């Protein structure tokens, strides 16, 4: 029973991180039909920038968060400008796939050169003693991760539902042409959705950094698994992402425990392949009707 509770609690924390990153995928896909293949690197940069603020400038963890979020926005806007906008203009899917991959590689390399190739510890803002709950050891930081992820997603939902600018974003996602007819500058909306997407990734980076080691390589696996979550949940369903994240997080933790840590990443990837083989629109998504 304790084992089960432990797997559950660790799995939920990990799963919520995946969900937050996947959330970013959804944002850009909804408005522009494109994804940032370097989303994991956005997370990585956020974590490293946060580390520099806290370590080198001695900043308080909580003060550092808005700075990292701001950095994330700029980084996302940059990716859209350089990698995505030119591809959308020439209507080349191949273009934005390859250029977001390329930008991801460049970011990783730049990070390696600035921060080195080693994984660095990130000072935790909360005490590192685990608390006991139903036989499981839960770190306060893990709770912060879950809370932080939920708060971020709720904030974005609030923005989308309650502000006119948020509604403009949802409208663009729903029907880009019609949104333009309403006077909404849709290419600005797309830039914004990339900025927001990188913001959530950077935020996720500083949330998870105290729980694992921070380094230039942390983005790759996380990005791929977040993509798996986005696909499994369905690129058009917010709820689906949370469910997908939890499923993946728990399955992964269980695999790591019962089989071996080396195989930890495999079930998520196999689940991704299965979903793409049988229901590409995701467990919660809607299948699109072909128009000929």
């Amino acid at each position, binding site marked *: 029973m304790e084992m089960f509770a432990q797997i559950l609690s660790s799995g939920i924390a990990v799963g919520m991180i995946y969900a937050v990153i996947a959330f970013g995928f959804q944002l850009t896909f909804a408005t522009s039909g494109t994804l940032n*293949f370097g989303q994991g690197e956005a997370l990585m940069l956020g974590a490293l920038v946060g580390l520099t603020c806290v370590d080198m400038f001695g900043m308080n963890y909580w003060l550092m968060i808005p700075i990292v979020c701001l950095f994330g926005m700029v980084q996302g806007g940059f990716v859209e400008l350089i990698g995505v906008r030119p591809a959308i203009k020439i209507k080349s899917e191949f273009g934005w796939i390859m250029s977001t991959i390329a930008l991801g590689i460049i970011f990783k390399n730049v990070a390696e050169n600035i921060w080195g190739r080693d994984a660095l510890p990130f000072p935790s803002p909360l005490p590192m003693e685990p608390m006991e709950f139903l036989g499981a050891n839960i770190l306060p930081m893990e709770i912060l991760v879950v809370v932080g992820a939920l708060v971020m997603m709720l904030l974005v939902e609030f923005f989308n539902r309650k502000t006119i600018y948020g509604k403009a974003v949802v409208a663009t996602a729903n029907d880009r042409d019609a949104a333009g007819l309403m006077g909404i500058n849709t290419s600005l909306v797309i830039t914004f959705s990339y900025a927001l997407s990188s913001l959530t990734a950077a935020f996720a980076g500083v949330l998870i950094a105290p729980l694992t080691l921070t380094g230039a390589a942390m983005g790759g696996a996380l990005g791929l698994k977040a993509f798996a979550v986005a696909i499994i949940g369905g690129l058009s369903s917010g709820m689906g992402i949370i469910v997908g994240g939890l499923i993946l997080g728990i399955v992964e933790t269980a695999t790591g425990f019962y089989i071996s840590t080396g195989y930890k990443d495999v079930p998520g990837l*196999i689940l991704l392949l299965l979903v793409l083989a049988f229901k590409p629109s995701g467990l919660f998504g809607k299948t699109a009707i072909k128009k000929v």
Partner: protein
Amino acid sequence: MKSKSLLPLLIAIVGLFSLPLFISNPYYIHLIETILIYTILLYGLDIVVGYVGQVSLGHAALFGIGSYTAGVLFFHFGTPIWLTLPASIVVTAIFGGILALPALKVIGPYLAMVTLAFGTIAQILINEMTWLTEGPLGIKIPKPDLMGAPMSKAQFFWLVCIVLIIAMVVVDRFVKSQMGRAFEALRDSPVACDCMGVSVYRFKVIAFVISAGFAGLAGCFYAYSEQYISPNTYNNELAVLFLLAVIMGGRKSRLGALLGAAIIVLLPKLLDDINLFRIVASTIAVVVAVGAAMALSKKVTTPRRVMVPLAGVVGLAAFSFWLDRISDWRLSIFGFMILLVVYYLQNGIVGFAKSFYQSIVGKTVTTRGEKADDIDDSISFISAVNNQNAGTELLKVDSVLMQFGGLKALNNVDLSIKRGTIHGLIGPNGSGKSTMMNVLTGIYQPTAGNVLYAGQSVVGRTSSDIALSGIARTFQNVQLFGEMTAIQNILVGLHHTFKSNMFEIALNLPSYKKESQEAYARAMALLKFVGLEDLANEEARNLPYGKQRSLEIARALALDPELLLLDEPAAGLTAPDIKELLRIIRKIRDSGITFILIEHHMDVVMSVCDIVSVLDFGQKIAEGKPAEVQADEKVIHAYLGT
């Protein structure tokens, strides 16, 4: 191949083989060997990337599977090369098939992710299954034995050369055959591909399997070449490098693959030596600047277009002088190169060189392919349908209901299409005409009801199956295979006449050559019929709109259909084009083919249809001779509202 282009190729081959005799340092031989091995892999990758047009991040893993098949067989069983080689090819090809399965229903970024997931899983498995692969320890492999003793470096090099040449010939034959055309059709329009009898699912699997086979072959040689393999070689970084190589060298080009391989092998070596890199980067910057100046002076391009690439290469050169070591920035440079290539060098170096040369020299070439032979007028390009059963029912639509959510696009529609007639289908926008077309060709499954073609139900069968049983169609929005030439489009329609398999194509056997010639002759005859014989080698997307429509009809005819569905064939046509269309339709009808014609152009409907059915809101509101329908109160009301 013509004798003119054969000579430089022969010289190159002789040069290649003589390299070990002139270069004494084995390091350089090994470097070139690696380039050749990568080239074999890139031939395979090009099939997926250049021909099917998808991004694959899984080829490093397939490469690894090839290497490890050889390594594992050698390590556990001491298997000799003449067994490990075919084993590597077959095992990797099987994995290629496995990779294709989740990829069947998806394209674009989803497909890229499938390959990425596959690649990651494969690398993890190789790393973890230590009982099989020795995991991170890796496997040592000596050079293969030749007549009792291990091969020398030179002998192995020659073996690689021979295999490369064979691979090059085989790939060249594949992509120029009906298989290559099927791959390109898949890329240009999956829907039209299915409707021309070329199954998208089937050819996707074939593309991945063949591609994987080449990767496996390359992987096997790589293992013997390096003499040591370990899991972390076959990572995602290598997968991206392979992609860079294919697009930078040039897609759909054997030379491009070789160039790309050379770049990704030599560049890291170049980056290790900062001085050499500075020289090369500066030279490239100067070359690009001079080229830009030449192009600007000839008014071939604008300052805006050359600004970014020029700034890029100059910046790179400057960057190299600023740093002391550049090898740490290797990946950034690769990423930067990808960006440059994706936006400014879309056809790779080979493609760019071709168009640059042409723009300087002043030749405009949009045509490709061999000159078409004289057209044999005696070939009957439309296989005449048995006229004896004229008037009997060919197609029966029985109470078909097509519902999308709450919307009934087709609401209990009955149609009876008689053999040898031209049956018009008209109605206001949104009345369900195109939906009916899509139901008849298997793109939609009807929610209820049945469709019987020559007595057999069509419901539940795939589009390509339906197409092969005699129903061909054109599309409301032209669905040609844009990047392929006119004659190639027709040849895809003639795919069903090709019976040769992979081996017959690879060996260029007489049976295949005969099939190919007959198909070409028939294709030319079909082009002549629609008046396009002079544009046979023109890319379909460059044809004027009216001619594109004619080409679509000719392509549909290539299927030897009994029933031809035309979806708004006159849309956007000028009056002379419409006259030509009517001529074509009548001629086709004379050979006994039955038509269903969706049209808004009333003149077309009136002048050529035998019977007309009118749809409104998914229901049939009138049916009869054209003049009767034109005067029908209900029809007038549906269109005009009076």
